[in-house]
């Protein structure tokens, strides 16, 4: 290729998108219904499966009267342990990427009942209505056994779980002499904090549509999940399918909050039925059945804090006891934060599990941190009062400049700025320190605050960039967008990296045929997939530069990749921006139909090893509590977040807004009530499991604190899906104490606890 092209006109499209409040690129599709969710793929000749759930918590199935249901015209099959073939020899074949230690639940595997609402059969029929009706008629006989679902009764059976699932860090070894330090402390505080189980309850119920393609065993599996790849490897191991045979697609997800990190049983059941019947099958769960999935575990936390006369933290002891199932050791980081957030030389952290007859818990937004921070930040508030120090000053006084758990520097930590900017925006200085001192008629007014912390992590991820002759850039990675804004920020990164207008870029995700990406969770997607997208686009840019340099009289002759910039649709020299080649013209001249590049990226271990990497926030809350009636309104929240570089302040703010709503829900209403007599969550509907409604939400002010970090990843991003939620519940409970003088240590802070 040796031909010349005219220099393109100088245009100023403006292709710097990173950090700009770009609206969701998939927004129109979502509001017009063009975005299809797992249960909306209306493939031809679809069969419907309806799940039959166990009414008992423990025991055995003794008989299933499938014949009675199969007699109905239009019912094709009743799948149960009686007729499901032994699929995979080893139970480890059922382990997905995020499985904790233990033996995973195997749906319809045997007669054993391990938890209430366990799926015991799948009725498959020609219509949904028929499947549902037939399922209601299916008689299943059980031999019930005594169950225990109350961790209060299993306090003495706690055990240390070991390493558990990937990413879990057991508590660090004790440091200093916490017992002695506590004994000698001028100010002491000791208390237990409790919350019951909470369920993720995304608005989109779990569902799978399996399309039977007729050739061999090939399936298109439209699944609600946070990780198509994880679902695919789970299914291929269990059903002996090749990756080509089990394509998992999940382009839109109506929330998941962790519930979709692991493959849920509906995908297993739908694939099982499709393979057995050689038909397309859909299985969707009811809201009630959503309470059979994982949950944030019921956790008891014991806190013991000591401070010296000046308010310096001398001793921290934080112990947690959380429920897990009989078959898995679900672990999350609950107590470690207490050794990290504040400067303290004497720290003891304990984390134990105890087994009950319930399903395994699962990660739920800010897993562990939301739990731990409620206890720690409530206890810090209590100790601040005892020490006679303002709760904010108390935290500033004990500010950790270094991660004492790991004995490492922070890669960056703008928590102090979060405190200052948040307090200023909130008007913290107007707070009268005395509890029950601020009021407006019947309303007692309280100000409370708390701190949050979350990990900044990066996972291995791959992406592919493909620029076609029409000037369109397609970038893809098998990631997911659970409403977080992944589509949008990846489009921004790609467009800016190659200097193309946003409209010329499409990002694809949620398909196992795309380059491999981790599950979307842990706030690592922006860092992991973003880095891969940037790298793939840079690799593509290098190819474009090479093509440009093959032009006769190329204005970019001899330039290295570092010497040029991709901006406004051109490649130009840094030193002389008039020396440039238009990307569209280049493709035209080159005669190439498309130029492609792929990249796989992961954390730079060598660079990161010396550092501790975290996002932080400071939450300030004003509550109004009716003095006589105990009703609580969260009138105002200021949430100041330092999470590295903000790729898109609009979607980032939206993440924090949602987090605050979550925090208000955790503080004031969310709890899954286990009726221990039945061993069953009894408020299993959204009418009785309360999450906030619009009328519960008032002013939320999000402050995105500037934070530069070139250690975490090339983009400098820490992720923002979790951090905004951490600390909110404690801040609300602390504000309630300030308003009323009543300390509520068992969530939620419902009105009965304030009468």
């Amino acid at each position, binding site marked *: 290729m040796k031909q010349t092209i005219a220099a393109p006109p100088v245009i100023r499209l403006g292709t710097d998108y990173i950090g700009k409040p770009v609206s969701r690129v998939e927004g129109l599709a979502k509001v017009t219904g063009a975005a299809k969710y797992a249960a909306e793929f209306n493939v031809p000749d679809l069969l419907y499966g309806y799940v039959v759930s166990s009414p008992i918590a423990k025991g055995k199935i003794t008989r299933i009267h499938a014949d009675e249901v199969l007699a109905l015209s239009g019912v094709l099959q009743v799948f149960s342990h009686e007729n499901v073939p032994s699929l995979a020899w080893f139970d480890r074949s059922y382990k997905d990427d995020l499985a904790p230690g233990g033996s995973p639940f195997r749906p319809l595997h045997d007669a054993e009942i391990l938890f209430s609402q366990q799926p015991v059969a799948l009725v498959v029929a020609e219509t949904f209505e028929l499947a549902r009706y037939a399922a209601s008629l299916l008689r299943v006989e059980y031999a019930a056994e005594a169950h225990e679902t109350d961790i209060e009764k299993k306090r003495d059976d706690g055990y240390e779980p070991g390493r558990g699932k990937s990413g879990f860090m057991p508590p660090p070894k004790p440091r200093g002499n916490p017992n002695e330090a506590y004994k000698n402390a001028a100010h002491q505080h000791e208390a237990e904090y409790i919350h019951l189980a909470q369920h993720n309850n995304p608005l989109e119920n779990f569902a799978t549509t399996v399309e039977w393609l007729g050739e061999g065993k090939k399936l298109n599996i439209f699944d609600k999940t946070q990780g198509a790849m994880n679902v695919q490897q789970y299914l291929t191991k269990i059903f002996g399918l090749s990756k080509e045979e089990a394509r998992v697609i999940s382009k839109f997800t109506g929330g998941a909050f962790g519930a979709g990190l692991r493959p849920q049983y509906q995908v297993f059941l739908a694939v099982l039925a499709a393979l057995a019947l050689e038909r397309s099958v859909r299985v969707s769960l009811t809201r009630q059945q959503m309470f059979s999935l994982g949950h944030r575990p019921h956790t008891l936390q014991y806190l013991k804090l000591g401070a010296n006369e000046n308010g310096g933290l001398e001793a921290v002891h934080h112990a947690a006891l959380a429920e897990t199932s009989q078959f898995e050791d679900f672990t999350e980081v609950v107590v470690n934060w207490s050794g990290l957030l504040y400067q303290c030389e004497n720290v003891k952290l304990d984390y134990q599990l105890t087994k009950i007859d319930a399903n395994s818990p699962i990660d739920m937004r800010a897993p562990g941190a939301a739990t731990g921070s409620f206890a720690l930040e409530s206890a810090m508030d209590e100790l601040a009062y005892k020490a006679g120090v303002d709760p904010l000053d108390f935290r500033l006084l004990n500010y950790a400049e270094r991660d004492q758990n790991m004995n490492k520097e922070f890669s960056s930590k703008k928590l102090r700025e979060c405190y200052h900017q948040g307090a200023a925006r909130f008007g913290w200085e107007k707070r009268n320190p005395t509890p029950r001192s601020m009021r407006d008629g019947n309303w007692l007014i309280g100000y409370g605050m708390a701190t949050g912390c979350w990990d900044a992590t990066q996972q291995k991820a791959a992406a592919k960039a493909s620029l076609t002759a029409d000037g369109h850039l397609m970038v893809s990675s098998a990631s997911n967008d659970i409403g977080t804004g992944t589509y949008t920020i990846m489009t921004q990164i790609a467009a800016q990296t190659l200097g193309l207008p946003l409209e010329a870029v499409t990002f694809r995700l949620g398909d196992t045929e795309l380059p491999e990406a981790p599950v979307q969770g842990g706030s690592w997607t922006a860092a992991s997939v973003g880095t891969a997208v940037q790298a793939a686009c840079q690799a593509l840019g290098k190819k474009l530069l090479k093509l440009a340099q093959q032009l006769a009289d190329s204005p970019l002759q001899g330039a290295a990749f570092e010497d040029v910039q991709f901006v406004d649709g051109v490649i130009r020299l840094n030193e002389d921006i008039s020396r440039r080649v238009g990307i569209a013209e280049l493709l035209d001249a080159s005669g190439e139909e498309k130029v492609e590049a792929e990249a796989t990226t992961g954390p730079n271990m060598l660079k990161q090893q010396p550092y501790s990497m975290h996002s932080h926030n400071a939450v300030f809350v004003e509550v109004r509590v009716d003095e*006589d009636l105990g*009703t609580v309104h969260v009138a105002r929240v200021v949430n100041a977040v330092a999470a590295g570089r903000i790729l898109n302040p609009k979607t980032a703010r939206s993440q924090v807004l949602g987090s605050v709503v979550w925090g208000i829900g955790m503080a004031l209403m969310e709890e899954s009530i286990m*009726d221990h007599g039945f061993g069953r969550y*009894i408020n299993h*509907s959204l009418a009785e499991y309360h999450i906030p409604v619009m009328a519960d939400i008032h002013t939320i002010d999000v402050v995105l604190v500037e934070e530069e970090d070139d250690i975490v990843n090339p983009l400098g991003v820490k992720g923002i899906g979790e951090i905004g939620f951490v600390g909110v519940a404690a801040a609300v409970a602390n504000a309630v104490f300030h308003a009323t003088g009543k300390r509520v240590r068992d969530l939620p802070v419902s009105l009965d606890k304030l*009468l």
Partner: protein
Amino acid sequence: MNSFTLTQATAIDEALRDKASHDNSAYLGGGTNLIDLMKENVARPTHLTSLHKLPLSQIERAPDGGLRLGALATNAETAYHPEVEKHYPLLSQTILAGATPQLRNMATDGGNLMQRTRCYYFYDLATPCNKREPGTGCSAIGGYNRIHAILGASEQCIATHPSDMCVALAALEAVVQVSGPDGERRIKFEDFHRLPGERPELDNTLQPGELITAVDLPEKGFAKHFTYLKLRDRTSYAFAAVSVAAALELDGNTIREARLALGGVAHKPWRSKEAEALLVGRPATVETFRQAADQVVKGAVGQGSNDFKIELARRAVVRALKQATEMNYELDENAFLNSNP
């Protein structure tokens, strides 16, 4: 949900005949509760007589001077009807405290009276329930009973009636107009819903086949001093932990007439005539209100998780009466919008 047949009746007698000619049948109004119950297999009718085409949607002056709410008028139409807003603002406020706009647009006034309890166990077929299956036992007694009754419960059932609207109808002394196989009759509101006693499966005193055709409001609407105070676990779309409809007629600071009814505390809207009697002729002071409140909860029994409701009901009654006294709807038509804490 089982399969069912459905008939669209166009006249009342046709509806009565249609229902009577089918075993295991039910009337279908707005369907906002019945269809849910059918999806949960709590109700399993095999035939529905749809009332949608009956000419019962009118809201008009009643022959005796009050207002007649057609049984098929929706909750939304009723709450925003100019006559209701003007003369029965307590009813408007109460309706708007319930459910969501979507539900209120579908739910009918007759259907509102027919709502079944929201007891967790009633809805969950995995648990015994005397209301759903008489004789199987009550799971709420000794179970989780935060939303259950503190007044008028029995050893068979401690469920509560979930309606807000009915609390106002009880306070306003509405009359339920019904048609049945034996003709028409009128049921005083206090006699419409019943306490569980030994027959918890029966929510009300309707006879088999009877159909609500209208709800009549007497002339007196207490449009000046009233309040509906609804306390719940979130600000909207939650059933009442305790609610209070209070209506007063004041002469200066003296109470001339009083109406007091509670929701969320019993198997029926709980009107306390004893407390009302105690208020009449007394000054509208907190002290008076406290005595009335004590009277309301006299004999209240907690079941464990709902013990708090006794004290909450006391406080709610005092607050509601105070709010009703301070309210002057003639001066400020939006006053009630801000009256819920």
